[in-house]
């Protein structure tokens, strides 16, 4: 089967380099406290782990046609976010490829706070699943009986 046949029409329609725009939010003290409690780590430096910046930017634009279950994450951390500061995230489609018959999309997001401090850069390795024709976790169910 050719690569073109493996990737869905939705996957083929999303261009590498596509600008996903920006989003922003204020990381509150409450968010930090809640994250630390949930992960049982009172010193957690990066509550943004739970914010899923790449996925949120991707779904704002493509939720109607594509799901990207998290198969992996590549991240670099520069400065931990400070509670009370506004964080702006920006993203793009960094890459897409076929591997072992599966189509993937790599979504990159960078986060910068209101003082211009670089917080993190992260890439979601998403398994491309077309909405309406491919259940998001069907592959996991087949492989693991989940």
């Amino acid at each position: 089967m050719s690569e073109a046949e493996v990737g869905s029409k939705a996957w083929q329609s999303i261009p590498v380099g596509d600008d996903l725009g920006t989003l922003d939010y204020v990381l509150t003290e409450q968010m930090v406290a809640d994250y630390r409690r949930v992960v049982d780590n009172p010193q957690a430096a990066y509550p943004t782990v739970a914010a899923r910046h790449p996925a949120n930017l991707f779904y704002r634009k493509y939720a109607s046609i594509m799901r990207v279950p998290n198969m992996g994450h590549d991240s670099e951390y520069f400065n931990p976010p400070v509670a009370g500061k506004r964080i702006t995230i920006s993203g793009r489609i960094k890459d897409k490829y076929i591997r072992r018959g599966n189509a993937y999309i790599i979504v990159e997001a960078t986060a910068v706070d209101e003082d211009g401090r670089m917080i993190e850069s992260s890439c979601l390795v998403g398994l491309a699943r077309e909405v309406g024709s491919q259940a998001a976790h069907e592959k996991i169910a087949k492989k693991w009986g989940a």
Partner: protein
Amino acid sequence: MMAAELKAGDHLQAVVRDVTNDKMVEFEKVVWDRGRNSHSDINVAKADGISRTIASGQNQMAFLHELMERNFGDAWVYGGKISARWIHPVYAGDRLTANGLVTEVGVVDGKPRVTLQVWCENQDGRKTGVGTASAGQPSAKRSWMDARAKAGAARVAS
């Protein structure tokens, strides 16, 4: 205070965490509420093709973060890198252990850099997430906690 330098073959002090349904549900709400999904709602999970909810990959990432924070301090928090892949489902009731093994100590841009294999494994010893991470040699400093304490004190004083 100096932290002990690591060398190839050293194991990090592991982090063990229990995954519960309540925490899986809450993890999907903290910082950025994602609504109901296959990590928090059985009906959504079934619609997505699985018979029960599974913990999100970022939930495992949180444990790997704690592993690196505890063992590296500032050296991880200011300049750490990680590349992880989620290779087996994690369920409510699982006990995950986050591990790290130093594979190389080198120099990058004139500074020492420690490279590790990192992974999470469940109570059966099955790996659920695997990857590599790197940071400078461990630091005893926890500057991000000091900065937050100072910010809190300043607010109280004002």
